């Protein structure tokens, strides 16, 4: 029998390499920080990363779905701001109960995602354009609701913001972290153990093939934007928990942070390759840079942006290099 194909003992896949590079960078940065600032190397700093970036993590997870299908969602920051705004407005002005407001807000986020996905799929509009429109729409609606910042005095929210769950070793975390981790677990399970999740990868790999293989491409592609919309809305709610306020100026540029986190986490912008766990590492890396700058104290916070930009460039070049070394014919 002739031997065809490749059988290698240890399979190092290019999508793994990207994630491992991010992990290595994160560990290196953390070690360096711990050496420079003794207070840096504590468990609480790690937990704080999640507390401060929980909302970004949730949004970036949604973004991962979209990017895996080969799309992009620029509306996430605006949708997050809108859902925070909607929360604040319904709770504070109309005094609706939390049990109604929260599901409603999530539904609105998913609805916006659905609308964008529908337009992108059925009218074959570039995701960049369709979600840019979604972004302007959502951002505009924020200001329709209220031009000024609304602070949230709802007891559920204020209590939530103050809740600390104690952990052994004098550490504590917030419910936000738990929610973010639950979203992460659900996303991981969805992507790797459901047909929808595998479909997301297939569509990102080759949408035409996916269609010919009989996959419900329409449902999958729109579904990815629904997931992203839902995650954005949830991220917005978490952001409202975090700041106990809402404003049309909140979460500006979050879409770019989310995209950066996803890309740094090793997901290919062309779709089909990447892991939600990589996205976590990407968010952590962004958070670590911020924390490091805070410990350093003298550098302006704009250096975060510069660092993110440099990292992004590095990772896109890395993707390119890894991509071109693939055996292709």
């Amino acid at each position, binding site marked *: 029998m002739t031997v065809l*194909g490749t059988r290698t003992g240890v399979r190092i896949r290019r999508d793994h390499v990207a994630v491992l590079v991010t992990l290595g960078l994160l560990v290196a940065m953390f070690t360096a920080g711990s050496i420079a600032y003794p207070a840096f190397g504590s468990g609480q700093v790690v937990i704080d990363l999640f507390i401060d970036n929980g909302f970004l993590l949730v949004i970036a997870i949604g973004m991962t779905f979209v990017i895996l299908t080969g799309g992009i969602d620029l509306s996430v920051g605006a949708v997050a701001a809108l859902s925070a705004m909607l929360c604040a407005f319904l709770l504070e002005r109309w005094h609706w109960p939390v049990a109604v407001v929260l599901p409603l807000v999530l539904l609105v986020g998913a609805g916006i995602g659905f609308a964008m996905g529908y337009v992108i799929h059925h009218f074959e509009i570039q995701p960049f354009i369709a979600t840019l429109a979604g972004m302007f729409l959502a951002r505009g609606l924020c200001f329709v609701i209220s031009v000024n910042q609304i602070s949230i005095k709802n007891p559920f929210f204020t209590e939530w913001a103050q809740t600390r769950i104690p952990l052994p070793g004098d550490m504590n975390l917030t419910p936000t972290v738990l929610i973010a981790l639950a979203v992460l677990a659900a996303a991981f399970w969805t992507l790797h153990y459901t047909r929808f999740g595998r*479909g997301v990868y*297939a569509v990102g790999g080759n949408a035409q093939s996916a269609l010919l*293989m*009989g996959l419900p491409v329409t449902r999958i592609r729109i579904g990815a934007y629904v997931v992203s919309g839902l995650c954005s809305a949830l991220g917005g709610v978490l952001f409202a928990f975090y700041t106990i306020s809402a404003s049309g100026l909140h979460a500006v540029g979050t879409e770019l942070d989310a995209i950066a986190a996803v890309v740094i986490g090793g997901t290919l912008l062309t779709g089909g390759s990447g892991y939600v766990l990589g996205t976590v590492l990407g968010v952590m890396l962004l958070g670590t840079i911020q924390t490091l700058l805070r410990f350093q104290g003298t550098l302006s916070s704009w250096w975060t942006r510069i660092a993110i930009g440099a990292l992004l460039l590095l990772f896109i070049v890395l993707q390119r290099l890894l991509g071109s070394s693939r055996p292709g014919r």
Partner: protein
Amino acid sequence: MPGAVLEMAGVSKGFPGVRALEGVDLRLYPGEIHALMGENGAGKSTLIKVLTGVHQPDAGEVRLGGTPVSVTGPQHAQALGISTVYQEVNLCPNLTVAENVFIGREPARAGMIRWREIRRRAGELLTRLHVDVDPGALLGSCSLAVQQLVAIVRAVDVSAKVLVLDEPTSSLDRDEVEQLFAVMRRLRDDGVAVLFVSHFLDQVYDVSDRMTVLRNGRLVGEFRTAELSRADLVGHMTGRALSTLEQLHVTGESARVQAEPVLRARGVGRKGAIEPFDLEIHPGEVVGLAGLLGSGRTEAARLMFGADAPDSGTVTLSGDPVALRSPRAAIGRGVAFCPENRKSEGLVEDLTVGENIVLALQAAAGWLRPLSQSRRQELVGRYIEALRISPADPDMPARNLSGGNQQKVLLARWLITRPKLLILDEPTRGIDVGAKAEIQKLVVSLAGDGVAVLFVSAELEEVLRISHKIEVLRDRRLIAEVANTAEITPEGVLEIIANGTTS
């Protein structure tokens, strides 16, 4: 003989302006490999599309196991037991082999995919068809042949009554084709009816039991492969005798060996693509590049056109040293290049035939100096006629043409610029015997007019038929240059490829 598993009776299908099929019958029996033959535009693709439900027939019916069915689409066809594997592998390169076999119908428990089960069953399927590949490997890391086999494995696992293979061998080398045939024979022995579409006569004779021949959308007949000679088959397909093919053979002594070569390459190479090589092409000379798939044929051709920049060496065109850094520079020097992949690298499918033809000329003239309408019409008309592009309608969108005619449009595009050196990369791949002979004839007559031609082809017979000189490549290295004399045979060239020398 058991009853036919699938019958198509009196199938007709028309498109605006074209009668694609006219009363065609096709019978497929379980446990046989049936070849569907015909030139480009004969209606093979349309017939397959009717069979798989992409098109609905205007008349006639499809019977499956004796009962008439109306196939509404590829999904429905699959559900009925008719699976198709296309020339382009329609799988996802970013997923594993196992997942590609099962995606869309993964075994799951309570909505949770059972990966172990997938890997196990994929392994079993692959073993059963003797495809030796790790089910956990990424599909994109496998060779095209393996990808094709995986597509077949997927197809037969979905449903195993009728398997349609639409030109599966176009991109495979000899060993890979053998591997594919082994799988096809195994499936046949399992009772699957295999419909095999191919342009390679040798392959059809190698593997098929019976064949149906179409010409111009009509059924010519159904034949037992063993009872039909090749000459008769070609006659049936083209409607004319084989003589056009035979009269072509050019001998190595004719033409060339005058003064200055059109192209002289010295030590030109590119890391990872092809090692440095020397090459000379004289006016009126056809130089063939022969070698197996992946031997560096295309890479060498691309360097000569500036599509890739060489790392080393010098190129002289008509005596002037030039730096071929971009196709633009090459075009400016009278070099034309017909790429291998006509769909993605050459033809603009949305433009009309006429627009495609004048594209390069217009580019050479500059966009600010449009060609006059009358000059354009005259040029386009002349080349459509000279190359016998059919239908001879300059306003037809290029996508509606058959493969062979698309290739002619591309050729016309470059010929119109009156190149000194014409590089043809697999100009006859995936097109039928008749069109092939025409293109070959055209190349020979171009050389007769003094054009230098660099001809790249996977088919040795073809290279031998029209080249004056053959450059043999192996493993990304030019290993030999042989004058194409009467003693050179395809076997001889294969021997050079295998051993590096003639025996």
